[in-house]
């Protein structure tokens, strides 16, 4: 459902005008970074696209302060190249979802990945966008310019609004400028793997690695059915050269009880962790779900859905289950709930997205509170595009 029109604000004043016009006109505004959003949820008829791509550029970057301020419309790839040139990284491992939707990559913006709360495999060790967003500037749905957080790594002055900004999905304010924490990029990485484990065995092996002194940064498992052969359970460590060898040696020890431990060649390891970002093994085009559960419950989720034809892999040591599943969406949501978590519909045909909300509806008390929080920043509901099952 393409929106009727699009706006391309070039300044904060333009944004304030856009909010005012939306309030007057009674139409919704769909904030768009890379605009790769055709896939998510459903859009209210008449919603106007608010294109943030003019808010682009590096505003301040001081590697030694570990702080980077960028325009929210800056492309993720540009930000990553900038920090990589200083041997730094966005530790939360954000990634471009383009390939997951069968599109070319490169369109994702830093504002989009932060607003979508995107985090990659290193989420288990380094945290998510929420943990790295230090501050931002934005214009609220009320049409007011807003400054939140700050440009230093340690700050508790006032409410932690950056936490709300990360994962806000364009529902509270349009962010124009973001300040992110950056970290040194570890010079060396190593991956240890075990082949042939089933879901429950994999969960146990990953838990053992996570609970060891190897300082594991990522742990994932790709099921046998997706590898056309033996399942692969992989654990990554990183750091300075001598340390990485020592950490890998700890893994060799800890994992030995779970199977034959292999040291993956660098190219193989890179391919594996890339597969986890692009979800190449799950590119069947079937509806794609993202299930968040306590790590020990990942196996319970797949044992419920596997018999119904789900294909799956684990990231975050089992705490994130990606699955493709053509069957009844309620089965996925029920399995997630039984395991103490929740499920998001990431990809699916329009007809499905019309019926099934992208996110698990919150319990009534939390839903009412969320609604009040949204009203605090967006009193007249200009960001209520209907995309998330909220009123359209």
């Amino acid at each position, binding site marked *: 459902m393409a929106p009727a029109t699009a706006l391309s604000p070039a300044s904060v004043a333009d944004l304030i005008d856009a909010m005012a016009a939306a309030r007057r006109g009674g139409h919704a505004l769909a904030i768009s970074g890379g605009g790769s959003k055709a896939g998510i949820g459903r859009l209210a008829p008449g919603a106007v696209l608010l294109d943030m791509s003019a808010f682009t550029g590096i505003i301040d970057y001081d590697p030694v302060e570990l702080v980077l301020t960028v325009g929210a419309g800056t492309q993720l790839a540009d930000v990553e190249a900038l920090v990589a040139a200083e041997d730094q990284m966005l530790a939360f491992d954000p990634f471009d979802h383009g390939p997951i939707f069968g599109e070319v990559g490169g369109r994702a913006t830093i504002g989009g990945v932060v607003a979508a709360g995107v985090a990659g495999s290193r989420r288990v060790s380094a945290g998510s966008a929420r943990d790295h967003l230090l501050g931002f500037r934005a214009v609220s749905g009320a049409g007011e310019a807003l400054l939140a957080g700050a440009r230093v790594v*340690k700050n*508790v002055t006032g409410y932690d609004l950056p936490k709300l900004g990360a994962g806000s999905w364009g529902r509270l304010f349009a962010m124009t400028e973001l300040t992110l924490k950056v970290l040194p990029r570890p010079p060396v990485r190593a991956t240890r793997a075990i082949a042939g484990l089933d879901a429950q065995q994999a969960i146990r092996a990953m838990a053992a690695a996570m609970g060891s002194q190897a300082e594991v940064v990522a742990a994932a498992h790709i099921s046998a059915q997706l590898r056309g052969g033996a399942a692969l359970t992989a654990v990554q460590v990183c750091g300075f050269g001598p340390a990485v060898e020592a950490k890998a040696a700890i893994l060799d020890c800890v994992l030995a009880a779970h199977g034959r431990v292999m040291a993956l060649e660098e190219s193989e390891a890179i391919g594996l962790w890339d597969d986890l970002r692009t979800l190449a093994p799950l590119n069947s085009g079937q509806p794609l779900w993202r299930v968040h559960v306590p790590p020990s419950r990942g196996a319970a989720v797949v044992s419920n859905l596997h018999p119904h034809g789900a294909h799956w892999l684990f990231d975050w040591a089992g705490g994130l289950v990606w699955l493709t599943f053509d069957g009844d969406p309620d089965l996925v949501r029920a399995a997630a709930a039984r395991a103490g978590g929740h499920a998001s519909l990431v990809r699916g045909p329009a007809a499905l997205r019309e019926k099934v909300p992208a996110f698990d509806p919150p319990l009534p008390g939390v839903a009412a509170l969320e609604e009040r929080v949204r009203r605090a920043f967006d009193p007249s509901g200009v960001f209520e595009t209907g995309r998330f099952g909220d009123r359209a």
Partner: protein
Amino acid sequence: MSLVMPEPYAGVLARRSEIVRALRAIVPGEGVIDDPDALRAYESDGLTAYRQPPMVAVLPETTDQVAAILRWCHAQGVRVVPRGAGTSLSGGALPLVDAVLVGMARFNRMLDIDYADRLAVVQPGVTNLAVTRAVEDRGFYYAPDPSSQIACTIGGNVAENSGGVHCLKYGLTTNNVLGVEIVLMDGEIIRLGGRQLDSAGLDLLGVVVGSEGLLGIVTEVTVRILPKPEGARALLIGFPSVESGGQCVADVIAAGIIPAGMEMMDRLAIHAAEAFVEVGYPLDVEALLIVELDGVTAECDHLTGEVAAIARANGATTLRLSADEAERVAFWAGRKAAFPAVGRVSPDYYCMDGTIPRRRLPEVLERMRELSEQYGLGLANVFHAGDGNLHPLILYDANVPGELDRAEAFGADILRLCVAVGGVLTGEHGVGVEKRDLMPEMFSETDLRQQQGLKCAFDPKSLLNPGKVFPMLHRCAELGRMHVHRGATPFPDLPRF
């Protein structure tokens, strides 16, 4: 003192005995305290310059009791102040004359420890250190480690988003909390987050952490626990100038090293600490840096070598590497005792907590020296050098008329300076009442109004911990448009101050 607190509700003060009776009906036995002498135990927190006994204190033991207390107070328009261990350094737990103080000390049980999922579910009155104590025999620990960790509670840590010397590498409380159960002011019990990473909706957990008891009373907390690193070694490095110490910090980070802890002390703090604990700190240096590296042994060895080389290149005059665990602990002993140590050389001290971009350190120190002369008060400096979080300690004597006022004015100038160079008013101690009136230094009126809008979403009658964080609380209705959505009526008019 010039602290202006919200005007007491006269009607509430007049109904004190009725309020006590109502609370007794909810929390039987010793759980309601109305004796004026006994109430004095709650009259202040770690910011002892401000004192005010509460109208009444209540010590609930269950979430249902907390909910009943808040529901009743909400219905009756009675203010509430939550309290953990009372170690806040910003007056966050300071009572109000017309408020019920809700003490969470009886919420002191560990509810669950789950090693497979690497988490612990604890009640908010459990102390910070108790979490580590409960899991350390299995090789785990809870990473945030405020210096007050023997006493302060997890509930207080959540409210203040507390840090510690290890937070550069391991994060603040917010990065280590997975979920909470919280009771809103109207008595509604909700859960935010859980045992998994990330929740489905807005990150309300993220705003509850660090909300200084203004959004709800936390009744249960799920924290992450981490495997204890294989080892840790510390370097004790002396520099002939604070500038060279600061440059060393910058160079360590530029080399891609994030130490577990990186702390700096200036001359006065070094001398006070050494006189107090006698751990062998060098006395002929202007700045002392403690750099701790943790992780696998090979990493500690490698990185201590790198840091030592960087320190030498920056003109370090003394350099010691801890040979064993006892020596590592000794290096820290002086730093950890720095506050009480300064307390021995001055009748009173006032601890500040601004953060600055590290590159501005030399000019900030220089300007603080000038201010110290201008106000005629001594200053000792202790800082979390890795993240630019300063703890200047202003030395004064409360018995000398005017010195406390001067110390506060000096402190306010330091915080203004932090903001002026691109930093913030508080890195980990919170705004509370202490920095409340300085908030406009950092935020515009619009910014503050939007933050208060968030407050109104949680507590529309502004009954929870009023007078804290925000300089002037608008009535929620005054924030205007915010609750008027498609013709829905705003909540009724409320008393204002």
